[in-house]
């Protein structure tokens, strides 16, 4: 039991972080905050990945004659790519937010939806 706990606690905390991020994304109405939530979510996933690559007693996967055990380099490579994808998404989302703020005058989801509903409703009528 204690073994399970100490062996999995990293993953659990990472999952808790993911869920905090996920909650911010789906429950909070502010667009910037949604993006921050998305970042929290993604970084937590990265922590999850890096955790699985660690080998006890290993060190960073940079070859050196004096070292026997290395941690797994593959998750590192994957997460490098994922981080880049994450920042790309963030940049695009922020650009969209700037435009949305200009078009709607707000970055709160509820106010945007109100304006959208008005537009949707006016569409059918001549």
């Amino acid at each position, binding site marked *: 039991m204690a073994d399970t706990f100490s062996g*999995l606690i990293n993953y659990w905390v990472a999952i808790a972080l993911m869920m905090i991020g996920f*909650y*911010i994304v*789906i429950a909070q109405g502010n667009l910037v905050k949604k993006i921050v939530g998305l*970042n929290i979510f993604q970084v937590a996933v990265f922590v999850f990945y890096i955790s699985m690559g660690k080998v006890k007693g290993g060190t960073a996967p940079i070859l050196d004659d004096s070292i026997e055990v290395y941690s797994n380099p593959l998750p590192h490579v994957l997460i490098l790519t994922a981080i*880049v994808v994450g920042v790309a998404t963030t940049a695009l989302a922020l650009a969209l937010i700037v435009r949305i703020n200009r078009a709607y005058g707000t*970055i709160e989801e509820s106010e945007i939806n109100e304006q959208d509903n008005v537009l949707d409703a006016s569409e059918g009528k001549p």
Partner: protein
Amino acid sequence: MIIISLLFFMTATAISMLWLRDLFAVVMLSGIYSLFAAVIYMVMDAVDVAFTEAAVGAGISTVLMLGTLALTKSKEKVHKKIAYGPLALVLITGGILVYGTLDMPHYGDANAPIHSHVASRYIEKSGLEVGVPNIVTSVLASYRGYDTLGETAVVFTAAIGVLVIIGRRKKKRKKTGAVNDGGDIA
């Protein structure tokens, strides 16, 4: 011990980001959140990832978010108490994930399948096949070089996308048609 306390800091930071209404503070905290994550990567031997996360998460993202706040609003307006629907969804998702961890190899287990199949070849042979000491670099640029090409394309997409969405064109002299240069896009 370092990892646990840093994870604790990260959780605390995330929770306070959830509560704070001042977006400016939220953005600053998200920078520090990334910085903590970067130290965790470093402690878990992922030095390259730590390097990138610090540069990107704490550096570029923060600057961009500040830039966005400057152009929008820096206070969150409505503040819902607790949204029960999303909360339930999140708890269920989290529950499923935790359930999935139960059969996982434990943290740091050297016998986990993940370390034996593909990765062991990288560690044993990359020195001979690629000849670069940093295994992450050899996997990144050679074995899985194609992923990195995709990654470059993603960065390219994002930059062009930002230009498309908010890039300002050069002020046109009226009615002169499409002569514009020096602008962002055309």
